[in-house]
């Protein structure tokens, strides 16, 4: 165990995540075509003019994949951001509250944990009619417990150390201790959780858009591309395989990156 070592999952995951980020960034300055119905044949397989072919409305597939990367990352960032912004303070609060109150918070957390992101999003879409915003909020809320849990367990380890006791004796209040000692010590755990949760958020968004409850018609989304491919599968399977591969690459990237980062930050766990 010679300290921190770069590992294969970290590198491969990092590269895949980078690939998705680059796709999203490129879409701001360049796409092969505009995202609209083109005066070209429909359902073309990949060819020289349309590298990934055209869909059943004669829209360029590569264009949609690039723009879809934007949607995917946007939903992930907002959902994970909401979850972390609420979950991390809740976890620290639960760890620092003495006795019953901390336990009560975690009990509530466990109950929210029984609500999967997709289910919460479907439920909300009954009231508010679906859409990207509702999807992001619902996925975010459903992800709070994961952050609260991991933060609490990390915080509990710090709170009982001598330097926190010393800080308390020196007259620092709980807020100062949380900010100066607890938060820096859970940051690694939270980043790992963020990467794993990002993958789950991508899956949930794709499923919601496939169900027609996520990204609305006319906006590029990998999940929606799958929905639109469904009736032409028998003759144009590439219309499902290409966005499917994009989803898998993004999820794989964030999963691997999270795994690799966990091993990197905690070399004792190597090989698990």
């Amino acid at each position, binding site marked *: 165990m010679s300290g921190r070592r770069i590992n294969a999952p970290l590198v491969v995951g990092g590269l895949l995540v980078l690939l998705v980020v680059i796709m999203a960034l490129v879409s701001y300055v360049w796409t092969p075509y505009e995202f609209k119905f083109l005066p070209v044949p429909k359902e073309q397989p990949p060819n020289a003019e349309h590298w990934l072919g055209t869909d059943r409305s004669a829209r360029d597939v590569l264009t949609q994949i690039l723009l879809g990367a934007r949607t995917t990352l946007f939903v992930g960032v907002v959902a994970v951001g909401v979850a972390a912004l609420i979950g991390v303070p809740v976890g620290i609060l639960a760890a620092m509250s003495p006795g019953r109150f901390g336990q009560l918070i975690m*009990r*509530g957390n*466990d*109950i*929210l944990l*029984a*609500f*999967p992101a*997709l*289910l*919460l999003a*479907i*439920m*909300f*879409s*009954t*009231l*508010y009619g679906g859409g990207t915003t509702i999807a992001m909020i619902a996925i975010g809320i459903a992800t709070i417990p994961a952050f609260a849990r991991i933060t609490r367990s990390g915080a509990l380890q710090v709170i009982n150390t001598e330097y926190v006791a010393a800080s308390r004796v020196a007259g620092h209040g709980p807020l100062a201790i949380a900010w100066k000692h607890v938060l820096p010590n859970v940051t690694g755990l939270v980043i790992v959780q963020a990467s794993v949760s990002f*993958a789950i958020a991508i*899956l949930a968004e*794709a*499923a919601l858009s*496939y*169900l027609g*409850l996520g990204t609305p018609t006319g906006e590029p989304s990998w999940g929606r591309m*799958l929905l639109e*491919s*469904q009736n032409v*599968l*028998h003759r144009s*399977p590439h219309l*499902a*395989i290409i966005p*499917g591969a994009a*989803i*898998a*690459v993004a*999820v*794989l990237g964030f*999963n*691997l990156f999270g795994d690799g980062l966990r091993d990197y930050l905690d070399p004792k766990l190597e*090989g*698990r």
Partner: protein
Amino acid sequence: MLLRLAQRFLVLLASLLAASALVFAFMQVLPGDPARVALGMNSSEESVDQLREQFGLDRSLIVQYADWLRGMVTLDLGVEWVSKAEIAPQLIDRLAVTGWLVITAMALALVVAVPVGTWMAVRHRHLDGVVLSAISQIGVAVPAFLAGIILITYFAKRWQWFPSGGWVPPAEDPLGFLSRLALPAVALALVQASILARYVRSAVLEVLREDYLRTARAKGLRPMQALTRHGLRNAAIPIVTVLGLQLATLLIGAVVVERVFVIPGLGSFLLDSVASRELITVQTIVMVLVAAVLIINFLVDALYLAIDPRLRTGGR
């Protein structure tokens, strides 16, 4: 042990109650008028009032909540707002369909994941172990509904070996039932098997490092013998936990997979009810799914006590 079990059961009941309050709060207390949502934004004031009165939406929220709870316990859930169909019998029929799907998928996943995961652990320093491990990582990244779409493309549309969807009850036409169950169950199982195999791998790796396994090897058992005789029971504990969690994700995965394969299960019921804005039906199905998750967690805890004698005396 019985005392601990009773304790866990009380926690389960309290969690169910709290979860039901949460579902109710999400659906009823959040801004928005249920009756207006159900009938659409352009409905007349009169018809909205009528619906509100007919289904008791003008009563206080506490009374409505208590009424809904009583309905779920006594299985008297009333009728749907718009279609006027009884909710409870539909719920039971569709729960059975989803049950078939989820349990078959879980069984398939287990049958594949336990040997493959064990193999991955035993051979983790060899090429085949690493390759299998990489394949399982990719499997985790493919959502079940996507696997379903790809399976339909080739096995149903292109080669026409299986029907692309639909459902017949097993008693009516056993062969037709199996042929329709096959693709969706495999779609769900592929992802689950990948996730499960990874957990089996890390659980077995953990056990392989234990002293008692080294002792077993030292007395002359071969690696696989040592593992099957002494290791697998210990590896089973973390796997059972994951199994419980996975059963819950399978249930949610089934919601989308049912849509892919046009299967009349709980998931399709939920999505149809969302589309027709049957708020109470949505609320009830969500509660059934959440309750299933909580009950599975409870069963996992109970199974834990059965597998690991150290936990029975408490004071963990």
